[in-house]
């Protein structure tokens, strides 16, 4: 599903990612952990095509990202807690426009099902984006990200501003989505969350993968930061 070979990225002479190679199979939920500035978000942005690496090869769903971005994008989605959708439009209006962008004809049942599972009130639908709390905003971004039932789902600190209960429900939805055809990559500073949700953990440190394997405990993670 995801194949990265020798990805390098620098900004202003500072190396952010250094020879990152990675292979992710269908059905995996991969948690990427690491200290601030380790290159986690940069890696995710490269996977989404928002950022181009200085060198290296990216293959998603068996296609090269560089030349097949639009085809891959139909099967992919991304959400970040720091993102805000169209501020003066309502949640429903924003989701409708994104349904158009992804060509999803009947998106209402998807949303209804998700919102029921996460116990989110319907009244949120008519709320304007700029009036949402940080947690609600993150949840709306998550809703947008699963609108097209993507085979590749990339989430950047999506539960960062959510309350523990909502965060738990969202992670349960992610786990339930986990099928052989779906792959999820989650960036999170909350290593406990990664440990509970993900089937695989990657630790990035100074732009390099220093651990790739089963999710491990917090005290063990710290040994990789040295």
């Amino acid at each position: 599903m995801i194949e990265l070979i020798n990805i390098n990225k620098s900004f202003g002479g500072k190396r952010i990612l250094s020879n990152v190679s990675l292979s992710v199979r269908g059905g995996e939920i991969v948690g990427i952990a690491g200290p601030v500035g380790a290159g986690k978000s940069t890696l995710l942005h490269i996977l989404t095509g928002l950022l181009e690496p200085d060198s290296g090869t990216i293959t998603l769903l068996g296609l090269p990202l560089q030349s097949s971005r639009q085809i891959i994008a139909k099967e992919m989605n991304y959400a970040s807690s720091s993102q805000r959708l169209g501020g003066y439009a309502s949640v429903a209006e924003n989701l409708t426009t994104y349904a158009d962008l992804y060509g999803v004809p009947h998106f209402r049942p998807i949303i209804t099902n998700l919102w029921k599972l996460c116990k989110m009130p319907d009244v949120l639908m008519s709320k304007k984006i700029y009036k949402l709390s940080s947690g609600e905003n993150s949840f709306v971004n998550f809703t947008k990200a699963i609108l097209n039932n993507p085979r590749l789902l990339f989430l950047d600190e999506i539960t960062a501003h959510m309350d523990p209960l909502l965060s738990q429900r969202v992670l349960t939805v992610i786990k339930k989505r986990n099928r052989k055809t779906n792959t999820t990559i989650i960036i999170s500073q909350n290593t406990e969350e990664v440990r509970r949700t993900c089937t695989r953990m990657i630790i990035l440190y100074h732009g390099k993968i220093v651990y790739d394997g089963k999710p491990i405990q917090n005290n063990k993670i710290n040994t990789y930061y040295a």
Partner: protein
Amino acid sequence: MHNSSIRRIRGLYLHYLYSIKRNPARVIEMFVWPAFEIMLFGFLAASGKNMPTEAAVISVTILTGIVYWNCTARVIQEAVAQFTDDFVSKNIQGILVAPISIGELLIGITAASLTKIAISLTVLGGVLVLIYPSFFSSLGAHALLWVFQLELVGVAFSYVALSVVFLFGERVSFSGWIISTVLQIFSLVFYERSALPGLLHTVSYAVPSSYIFESIRAYQYGSPLVTNSHTIALALSFAYMMIGFGLVTISYNWARKIGTIIKS
């Protein structure tokens, strides 16, 4: 055009239309300030009958220039304003991760800008009819041709402005104002081409709106419509549109290298 492409354009169109909905700052920018401007110079032109002939002509020239320049400048400024909003909110990341092409993005932005400008011009036209009723009757049906052509110029140069936003992000939210102001100098909105000295005079020949404003003034002063000027303006506008599209594509690819989209 493929159905799914039309749907993506509709999504972008709606997204950019919603950007002004319930947004008081943008409503003021789009409707209230231009309306005050039209009122001010509309009253000046209406009082022209009490002025010496030359002063009356100047006041009508200023009003005509302001009304028609709105068609170009507002398209550029609106396109940049709505696009910059997406950089500020980081919604641009969500949009560019979606399966859209640069062509679809530009069509969506353009369609939304033109819709908003059409509403804005209708409001301004209404204000003008109340203040200076003979304004439109003196121009006749040609007014629509000029509006269309000037909007086309606005679309072409809005692409140039959008390419700047792609490169520098929200920091250059003023690029729409700068490009439209510089363009105005060469567009001969209020003066004849001969008023521009040396190099500025030469450059003005490459600006499509200069031909349109010359044509408007000539028609106002009793000359027949110069179709040749409009053909040149149309050809130049399409050329700039192609150049603008190329610039947006280049700057988008460059932005993906330098990280403007993710750093916004």
